[in-house]
């Protein structure tokens, strides 16, 4: 490939945080994941999670948002997530907690189906403010080949 990409495996980036209010957790849950532990504090206390917590899919969506933001800040012409090899939810994200992502580039590859793009394999650690891991994600994101130099 003649288009050099100034990205290397092992490179690490840390995003800014996003905080989850009770209102935001409930708005997402009402629409997409209406289960008691995402909707109602007293029901949530009796649940497996022990308190009102965000839907894992809200965490996933906002993880991808943070990944895109931190890559853009590093001048990587990111398009979006294309594939998630693995995501594990390890700890509930409770009301008023925040997450940030620590992104490590695992490899830089040609895109599997679209020749105009390349693909970054990323390891993403989703941490709360106390640096406890909330979730972990291995994913591929598409990047614009023209702009990656």
């Amino acid at each position, binding site marked *: 490939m003649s288009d050099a990409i100034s990205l290397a495996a092992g490179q690490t980036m840390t995003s800014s945080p996003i905080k989850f209010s009770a209102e935001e957790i409930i708005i997402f849950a009402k629409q997409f994941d209406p289960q008691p532990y995402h909707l109602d504090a007293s*029901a949530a206390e009796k649940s497996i999670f022990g308190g009102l917590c965000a839907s894992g*899919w809200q965490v996933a969506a906002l993880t991808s948002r943070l990944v895109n933001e931190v890559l853009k800040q590093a001048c990587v012409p990111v398009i*979006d997530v294309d*594939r998630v090899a693995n*995501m594990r*939810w390890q700890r509930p994200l409770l009301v008023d907690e925040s997450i940030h992502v620590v992104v490590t580039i695992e490899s830089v590859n040609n895109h599997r189906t679209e020749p105009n793009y390349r693909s970054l394999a990323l390891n993403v650690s989703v941490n709360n403010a106390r640096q406890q891991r909330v979730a972990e994600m291995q994913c591929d994101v598409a990047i614009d080949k023209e702009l990656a130099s």
Partner: protein
Amino acid sequence: MSELYLRSRWFEDLPVGEFHVFGAHTFSELEMIEFSQLYAPQPEYTDPVAARSLRHGGLVAAPWHVVAIWMQMMVSYMERYAHGVQDGRRNGAGVRVENIEWLEPVRPGHTIAYTYEIIDKSETIVRDRWSIIRSRNEAFNQYGDKALSFEIDILAERAPR
């Protein structure tokens, strides 16, 4: 749709190989934009005009929106068959998802049908009364093209002994 089961089911009642088409959803431009403004604010998902010159040649649903609707359909499906369960459900919390692939763009007006198949069960007991069920989940558009695919491990409550 007729009722498929006479009773709420425990982990032990859920067989490997069970397959259902558990819901279908037609995506509107408005809901796609509303989702993306909050969770995926990129012009290919929020701006129908700008999206024309971007990756898919028009507005598409954000990847996690297609998955969020899977969850919405799945909760509704689980509630329908959780007969007699006090809090309305016996299956729930996901612990791990693998191999999520978004294979076709979802555009305004597309109707996506969601399917799942139980592909594995683990007898390992988690927190006294739960075990893990693995399912393969797929979603197809109105042309029959697969738009989404993944496997997920969720906790299912074991029958009391």
